């Protein structure tokens, strides 16, 4: 196992701290606007819920130019008198440094895992630096299941608008659940709690020179935990509101990053998922409540236009991947009027399975293959939005559940074609 190169002053800080109970990692890159709030919420949470445990906040920065690191180092803690019942017994140490290696969230996490292992932490948490809705309770929800209930991995569960997280809802959640048999609702949530043992396990994996170091770390962590039989749970954290993502990253790039990570993991863990059938709920912590979410105005006509343009331009590629039967269905969809457009769950399930099989068989270069999925995904998203427009959040969730059941029932199709390479 290669270790991370840390600066001598960071090493000295770690040696000085020597041992800790909790490590909270915050990966960042130009998050000066929000990181002070995140650090304060983390400190308040540690003080409120774990006052007698030793804790370290680690900011693993990707070379920010806006003073993110300096804000972490200089930010003052919360006013304990106004928000807490008691003062911390143990102080919270803070380490802020620029990580080395391939630029990306994965490399930032690797440094956090390394430090957590060096400090023999019992529990670790990672939270995004761009969060606006983080509260001190997030620390309790992500750490307690590890320290008090013996779980190794705690995924987040958020209240989200019914139209948000469509890649998660239509691809990542149904596929992860179908493959690995665990119903983790937000596999790529980004805010996780995990045991020190699991941090060491993550660190021992030889993936830090691959795409995992750049992106796809979230799904990698979730899948690695499930596929290696670690005890997994999820905790309700309320709403997730954060700064807008990198505006330069377009939808097909996002889709490629997420789906390629998912498909690569399918290759690595085929022995685990091929024999599995059905899925089980995972223990869920926290009191779920409805959150007032802003109305999102969405126009599906331009999504459907993208779908039809995709059919016109990428039809030959889709036919190679989907075969004549399902491609015929897609062509039929392309001829429908906007108001009659319904992308059936059965067809969508086979589309995702066929793309996974095409990836497995290397039918096209990975990037081209996955990016060609974009118009199909937009068609599916438009269909879901049209259908769920007048639904309540619970009814919309029931639609996602239907899709998941369709994925599970059709798993044999995936298994059969996967094995006949």
């Amino acid at each position, binding site marked *: 196992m290669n270790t991370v190169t840390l600066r001598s002053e960071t090493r000295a800080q770690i040696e000085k701290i020597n041992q800790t109970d909790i490590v909270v990692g915050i990966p960042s890159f130009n998050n000066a606007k929000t990181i002070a709030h995140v650090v304060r919420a983390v400190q308040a949470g540690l003080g409120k819920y774990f006052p007698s445990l030793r804790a370290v906040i680690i900011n693993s920065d990707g070379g920010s130019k806006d003073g993110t690191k300096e804000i972490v180092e200089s930010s003052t803690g919360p006013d304990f008198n106004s928000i807490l019942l008691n003062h911390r017994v143990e102080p919270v140490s803070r380490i802020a440094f620029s990580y080395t290696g391939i630029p990306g969230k994965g490399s930032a996490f690797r440094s956090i895992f390394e430090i957590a292992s060096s400090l023999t932490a019992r529990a670790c948490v990672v939270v995004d630096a761009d969060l606006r809705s983080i509260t001190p309770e997030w620390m309790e929800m992500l750490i307690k299941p590890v320290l008090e209930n013996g779980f190794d991995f705690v995924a987040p569960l958020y209240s989200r608008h019914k139209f948000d997280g469509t890649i998660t809802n239509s691809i990542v959640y149904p596929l992860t659940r179908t493959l690995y048999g665990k119903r983790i609702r937000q596999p790529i949530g980004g805010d996780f709690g995990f045991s020190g043992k699991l941090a060491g396990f993550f660190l021992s994996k030889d993936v830090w020179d691959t795409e995992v170091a750049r992106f796809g770390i979230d799904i990698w962590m979730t899948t690695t935990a499930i596929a290696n039989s670690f005890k997994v749970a999820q905790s309700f954290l309320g709403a997730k509101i954060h700064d807008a993502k990198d505006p330069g990253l377009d939808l097909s790039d996002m889709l490629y990053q997420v789906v390629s990570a998912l498909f690569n993991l399918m290759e690595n863990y085929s022995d685990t998922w091929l024999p599995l059938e059905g899925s089980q709920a995972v223990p869920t912590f926290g009191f779920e409540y409805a959150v007032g979410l802003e109305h999102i105005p969405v126009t599906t006509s331009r999504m459907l236009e993208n779908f039809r343009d995709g059919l016109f331009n990428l039809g030959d590629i889709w036919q190679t991947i989907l075969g004549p039967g399902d491609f015929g269905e897609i062509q039929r969809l392309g001829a429908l009027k906007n108001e009659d457009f319904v992308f059936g769950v059965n067809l969508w399930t086979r589309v995702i399975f066929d793309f996974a099989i095409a990836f497995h068989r290397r039918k*096209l270069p990975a990037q081209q293959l996955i990016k060609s999925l974009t118009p199909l995904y937009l068609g599916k998203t438009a269909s879901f939005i049209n259908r769920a427009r007048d639904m309540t959040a619970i009814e919309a969730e029931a639609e996602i559940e239907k899709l998941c059941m369709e994925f599970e029932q059709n798993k044999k199709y995936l298994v059969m074609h996967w094995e006949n390479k």
Partner: protein
Amino acid sequence: MTNLLEMVIEPLEQVFLKFQVFLPNFVAMLIILLTGIFFAWLVKLILQKFLKAVKFDSWSDRMGFTSVMRKGEIWAKPSVALGRAVFWLLVIVTVMISLSSLDYETLNKLIVSFFEYLPRVFTAVLILFTGYVLSGFISRAMLIAMANAGYHYAKLISKAARVLLMLMILAMSMEQLQIAPGIVLAAFSILFGGIVAALSIAFGVGGIDAARRVIEKESTENPKKSNKDNIEHI
């Protein structure tokens, strides 16, 4: 009488002497030829088995080589066709080597020029092969990127790009083969420049209204059609 006999025998002796010199060379040629053919057959057999093992036919289907072969009325499997091509190439090389064993000056010159030309053929084939794969990759990447960006004419533009790339590659391989390099260069320049000029004229003069419509459509619709919307996809 003796003189007459000598006059008859002497040429016969010379023929016999020449035959004495020729016969071992001829036998050597036959041996080289037969051994070479056997070796070529063996290489073909091993190559076809290897190509089958590495699923060359499926790869060829994916890369579009099979469809190119079908268009050229070649109906054998790509692995079989490649095996045969290598076999015949080795047979031709064997024939050339075997002919050199006859030790005729004219033949030797021909053989030397053949072997001098052979690397050019290899390079030209390599340029064509690499160019075909690369142009396919580039045009497909263009097609997907443009289709995702909402360009309605993505297919047409990517196909045009591939044709232009193939033209350039064809000109490069023809130049490598030294087949009328001046004419090839001129033809390529005229054709390439002609296409660009034709497009400019079509857009700038002939189809000014159509061009305006296309440009307006792409420039006004693309922001609308771009994938950026109000929902969070992840």
